[in-house]
């Protein structure tokens, strides 16, 4: 009895407090000025070159839109698709995410991306380059909005070419000319990697090597694909083996691992995106004028098909259907793509990429696009863009094809057997 009284009194006090809190919550007026928080999954914040820039852009966005707060989630480029798919199926996707290439189509397969057709007004569409939205349609719905364009080009180090006795203003235009140039580089500068090429076993590597396969006439995956057990694919694999056996490539490196070496003049030719300039200058602090004397970029050397190809490696922005703040998310996307601050700090700054806009809002920003590198991309390289057959089949096929490429590059198994093995796995 004596022990019960303090306990009863405690319970009574707790109940009274709960009732008071509940009443205060009901009675309190809703605070309309409280900012909404949207989560933004991206790899820009995960990479040293771009992190300061994206953080600055987010800070300026929040200053311009005090009712919206951005929670940036840094996820590496290699991991982002995997994490987004798992989070979507777990029911906790971010509001907005940066995606690229096959990952965009892969995430769209979950059916959980918000269609953007209703958000893209005629004004918004008119501000973009023609046709730029077409490649982001799945089942006739626009599922991603282009943020930056970053096609790949064939970069050549003029200084190293000159040392090898090659004409620095005349980069190789065909595979045969390329092989001669690589031989000259290897002979005169043994410490230099003649050709920087990503041969890792991942979907991005497949996307990067797709134009090389196409220039040999090979198309192992996709609608109308000829498969992997074809003379064209074998010719491509044979060429890759020749590159490795002659020491012209450094197998097993990701493209990002070649970039700092290129900045130190340790790579003569490199197949990489437009953003390579920004990465190299961030590493070696080379001023623009000196950079353009040192490096040039052109179209892919043509193979037996006689045509050049490239891939569009740009980044897109998506809104997830489960987002509770879609309007705020779209406002943020618009800011990232069109605001002068984002264009200056990120797209044309640290990102060193091309905007999808037909015309830039600021004349000073427009002048930044008038450079030898960007003119080369705009005039010659972008017209050769060919989109790979993105989707789940591309992802699973990429493992089989790139494993086969690695077998060709690093082993001694007959090329015929490798091609057959790739085809067998593609057929499962």
């Amino acid at each position, binding site marked *: 009895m004596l022990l019960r009284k303090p306990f009863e009194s405690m319970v009574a006090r707790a109940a009274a407090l709960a009732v008071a809190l509940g009443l205060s919550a009901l009675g309190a007026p809703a605070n309309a000025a409280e900012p909404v928080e949207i989560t933004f999954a991206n790899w820009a914040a995960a990479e040293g070159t771009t992190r300061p820039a994206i953080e600055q852009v987010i800070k300026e966005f929040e200053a311009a839109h005090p009712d919206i707060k951005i929670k940036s989630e840094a996820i590496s480029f290699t991991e982002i698709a995997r994490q987004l798919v798992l989070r979507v199926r777990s029911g906790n996707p971010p509001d907005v995410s940066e995606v690229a290439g096959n990952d965009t189509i892969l995430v769209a397969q979950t059916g959980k991306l918000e269609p953007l057709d209703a958000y893209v007004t005629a004004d918004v569409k008119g501000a973009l380059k023609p046709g730029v939205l077409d490649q982001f349609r799945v089942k006739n719905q626009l599922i991603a909005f282009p943020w930056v364009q970053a096609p790949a080009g064939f970069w050549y180090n003029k200084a190293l070419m000159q040392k090898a006795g090659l004409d620095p203003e005349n980069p190789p235009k065909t595979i045969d000319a390329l092989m001669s140039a690589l031989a000259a580089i290897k002979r005169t500068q043994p410490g230099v990697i003649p050709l920087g090429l990503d041969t*890792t076993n991942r979907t991005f590597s497949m996307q990067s090597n797709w134009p090389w396969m196409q220039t040999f006439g090979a198309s192992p995956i996709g609608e109308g694909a000829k498969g992997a057990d074809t003379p064209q694919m074998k010719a491509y694999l044979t060429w890759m083996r020749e590159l490795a056996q002659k020491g012209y490539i450094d197998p097993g490196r990701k493209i990002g691992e070649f970039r700092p070496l290129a900045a130190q003049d340790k790579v003569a030719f490199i197949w990489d995106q437009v953003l390579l300039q920004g990465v190299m200058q961030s590493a070696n602090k080379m001023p623009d004028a000196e950079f353009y004397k040192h490096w040039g970029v052109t179209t892919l050397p043509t193979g037996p098909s006689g045509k050049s190809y490239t891939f569009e490696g740009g980044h897109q922005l998506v809104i997830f259907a489960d987002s509770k703040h879609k309007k705020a998310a779209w406002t943020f996307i618009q800011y990232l793509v069109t605001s002068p601050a984002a264009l200056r700090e990120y797209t044309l700054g640290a990102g060193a990429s091309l905007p999808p806009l037909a015309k830039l809002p600021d004349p000073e920003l427009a002048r930044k696009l008038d450079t030898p590198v960007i003119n080369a991309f705009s005039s010659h390289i972008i017209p050769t863009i060919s989109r790979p057959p993105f989707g789940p089949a591309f992802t699973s096929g990429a*493992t089989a094809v790139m494993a086969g490429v690695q077998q060709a*590059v690093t082993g001694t198994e007959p090329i015929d057997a490798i091609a057959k093995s790739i085809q067998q796995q593609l057929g499962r």
Partner: protein
Amino acid sequence: MPERRRAAGSWQKRGPPSGGRAAARGRSPAFEGKRRVAPKPGEPFLDWMVLPTVGVLAVVVGYPVVYALVLSGQHFNFLEPDPPRFVGAANYVQLLTDPIFWQALANTAIYTFGSVAVAALLGLALALLVDNYASPRMRVVRALLLTPWAVPFVVTAFLFRYMYLQNGGVINALLLDAGIIRAPIAWLNNAAIALPAVMVANVWAMTPFFFLLLSAALAGIPNEVLESARVDRARGWSMVWHVKLPFLRNGLLVGSLLVVINNFNDFGKIWATTQGGPGYATTTLVVYVYRLAFENFDFGYASAMGAVWFVLLMGFALAYLRTLQTR
């Protein structure tokens, strides 16, 4: 309960046997003659006290295992909007005809047993070498020998990855400078030597475990046994082979079994160095399951492979339990 009568002359009348006799059987004197005490009536709650642990294990271990077995009989791809559908044994049939599965299984066996055998031998050699020295300097040496075990596995993987670089790696640089090789070797990009190269990294990380285990076992050998052996003029190799190794046998066996199970599941070192490449040269079961589940999102097929993996590991676990019981 009536008190049990002990047989005349048993150790409980005379006291436990000397460390020498028990030790000569390779057992601790404390184990000799120990009897299992049955719970007294009126104390069932002692059995019920394990229930929370069983509950947690059922949720954390049991549920995923059962769910994975259920998934193994279904076609379930995360990228497809359709719900999973039952396909019976189709995933297992596909597995039997999948050449990559068999290659991954072979790679797993080579990686696991090869690494454990070499690490155990190296650990044994090091333990025997430092066994007789107790100076402060040797304590520093012992600490240094244990250092690789303290290094996180990701650091180990990246360390060796950069050491193995064909152009710019320190191993090739040293070998070229010493004139042992004329051209850089593609350690991780040559299908023939990539797996042994990764195994070297694994052995480097695992050897300290065996060194520690076997050093402790060597320290537990009774002095009387060693002195008796010295009296019988046992020296050097005969002391090791006939006296020390029998004492190390059980510890080595149990330690090896544990490490085999651990290595079977070793994903981090392989993924961080080669990602299973070049081709499938270093693709083990765990790497292949990871690619199927988290790159292709084919959870049904990956679960079937996981079920096979589970059965193999259960075999090792049963062998481990049997070994413990026969001690």
